[in-house]
């Protein structure tokens, strides 16, 4: 086992490019999301064309314009750009601007005389989520305007009570959950790659026929996957701290114990995937996307509580979700309410896969899948 483990690590050391890619994928994933969503949370805000048709702006018009441009604790912030109707229309139809707010002529008079008036809002409804993110800040600004200028009409207001005093930034939250993704991806890919390289270099038979027990060889490959899977984690935490100034809550021992078992479980899956596909062409996307799949359905992109009870219950029975559940709670709240249960579940799965995956991988490795397919074709 030790020989197989050392050999695999040596292979990785000789291929630093491959290791760099294992580190880069989750990092790029995080940077990609940060850049994409950064505009909602940081920066100057969403560019919004404001067309002022009002000929005699007064206190209400100026007030609305001021509120539209004000910084807001609830993202996204709007970045109003004053322009004429023609330019706004052209930019909107060319897709260069996604939101246009038009303040009509007579706006000031209508409000001063207690008459009803409409502001026009044009939204590029590319898809529902974007439409929501464009419409909602306008609604919020209008509500703030109501609460400021129409005290007699704003009989209802609201207040928000958070469960905890600090709200973590969305993108830091994602970096923490991507660290779990990177462990899964690294383990599946490293173990899968350890198998496929034997098939691609036609060294599988030599290994199987050596004096070492096959089980030990496969376990060695699995553990090399476990070690490789942790390479991206420090970079992710560090980058998230540099960008957002927040460390995750919790202690490193809990993180390591849960992710070690997760990595072991994922390595087992990688081992089987490598034996089945025997080609890196399939193992790379399977590792990257299998891990993304679990990252999303286990609450990596958004907490499962948003999705309602049905989804939560189904997800409860997936082993990896348990790791995410405890880690997300630990990262965000610093609490460990489900740690014992989740550690037991992933522990059982990890031990089970550690026993069974070398057996399955060994069995599949002995099959000549190409020949079987050929025979089946001939029989037909």
């Amino acid at each position: 086992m030790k020989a197989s483990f050392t050999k695999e690590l040596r292979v990785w050391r000789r291929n630093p490019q491959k290791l760099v890619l294992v580190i880069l994928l989750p990092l790029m994933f995080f940077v990609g999301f940060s850049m994409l969503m950064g505009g909602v949370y940081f920066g100057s805000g969403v560019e919004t064309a404001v067309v002022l048709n009002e000929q005699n702006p007064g206190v209400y018009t100026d007030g609305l314009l001021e509120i539209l441009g004000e910084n807001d604790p609830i993202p996204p912030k709007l970045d109003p750009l004053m322009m004429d109707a023609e330019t706004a229309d052209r930019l909107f139809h060319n897709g260069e601007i996604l939101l246009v707010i038009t303040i009509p002529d007579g706006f000031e008079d209508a409000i001063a005389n207690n008459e009803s008036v409409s502001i026009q809002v044009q939204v590029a409804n590319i898809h529902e989520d974007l439409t929501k993110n464009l419409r909602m800040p306008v609604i919020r600004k209008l509500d703030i305007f109501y609460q400021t200028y129409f005290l007699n009409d704003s009989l209802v207001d609201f207040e928000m009570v958070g469960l905890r005093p600090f709200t973590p930034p969305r993108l830091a939250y994602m970096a923490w959950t991507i660290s779990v993704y990177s462990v899964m991806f690294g383990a599946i890919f490293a173990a899968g790659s350890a198998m496929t390289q034997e098939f691609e270099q036609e060294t599988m038979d030599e290994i199987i026929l050596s004096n070492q027990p096959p089980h030990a060889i496969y376990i060695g490959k699995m553990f090399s996957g476990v070690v490789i899977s942790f390479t991206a984690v420090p970079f992710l935490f560090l980058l998230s701290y540099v960008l957002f100034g927040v460390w995750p809550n919790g202690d490193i021992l809990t993180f390591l114990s849960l992710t070690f078992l997760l990595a072991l479980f994922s390595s087992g899956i990688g081992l089987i995937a490598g034996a089945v596909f025997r080609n890196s062409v399939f193992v790379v996307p399977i590792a990257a996307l299998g891990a993304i799949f679990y990252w999303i359905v286990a609450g990596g992109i958004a907490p499962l509580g948003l999705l309602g009870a049905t989804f939560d219950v189904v997800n409860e029975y997936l082993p990896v979700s348990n790791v995410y559940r405890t880690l997300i709670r630990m990262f965000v709240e610093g609490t460990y309410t489900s740690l014992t249960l989740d550690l037991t579940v992933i522990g059982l799965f990890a031990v089970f896969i550690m026993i069974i995956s070398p057996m399955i991988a060994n069995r599949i490795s002995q099959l000549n899948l190409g020949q079987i397919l050929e025979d089946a074709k001939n029989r037909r």
Partner: protein
Amino acid sequence: MAAIVKKDLKQAKRDPKFLGPSLIIPLVFLLVYTIMWTSVGGGESFACGLVVEDISPEANNMADILENMVSTTNHTWFSIERYDLETADELYRNGDLIAYILIPDGFGENISSGQNATAVMFINNVNDDVVKNYVHRFEAAVLLFNQGAVYPDFDQSSAPIAMEESLRLTATPSNLKYMAAVAIILSLIACSLASQAMLTATEFETGALQDTLNSPTPRLALVLGRTIAAIPRSLSSLLIVAPVICISMNVFPVGNLLILFGILLLTILALVPIGELIGMKIRNREQALLAAVLLTVVGFILGGGMAPIGLSPFSIRIIMLILPTTHSLALWPRVFFLDTMLGLTNSALYLLGTWIVMSILVMRLMKKEVELS
């Protein structure tokens, strides 16, 4: 040149493994999204508890607004469950309920006596995105109430300021339909990049590329031949992916099919030389594939595959616009959901320019390789 095209196509036919990433990547992405969005009623309805302690008509109006206000795809904004205060608070504190709204006793009385009434939202502030999504929805309900726009008509005509909205598309595509449409071009992106990167890296591994480069064929013909061969090869992934996605997700293109084909063609032209560069630089099949997958995933996310880049700050958008995938992903859904030719020129020219620049780079690399060998 014809011989190069023939050779590359024959190679693709003999070893169709290049289709792997282009089938797996979009279909897994789509599967994940389908699971996510269908389990939550279209992705717009957020689970939320409601505790109404007041029995006045005003409290009922507020509750009706919260329960019935809808998004542009006609999904309610909240998927509301009513609870008593004790149960809601227990679920909330256990993490089983991410938020609940309390309409307190005396809510209606305050309004009828001309005083302010306050509704309270208790929220598990896991991150600021969750807070944003809940607060925005709640605030919309409060505004509707103050505008006098109550359920079922939500009529704002007597409000001091009403909001008159106009949407660019006649029907807003749901998140799932949008994702289905972009999954088609994602498949093409994956196929163009990965197949060319793998082909070149394999030829390096076998030494076939050096032989080809040292042959008397002009380098321009070589690059053009390989690019032409990449067009049917890349499009072949769509023969499977496009019908599967369109039929299973019930999403069909609205825009002109010829323009859509043109966008696919430009995407292939821009990405194939990049795949070639990856293969030439990495020279190892597995690593070239990993790099191509990495570039595909990052290019897809950064390029606006999951959310259009319009929300990003200008300075970051400039960086995103360097990626050719950003332009492909800007053009594709635009024409897929709308029969338009507006706003296509810049991105189309950028893709064409990328093809030319990258092809020149590939030719220079080939020249360097010949000199070295």
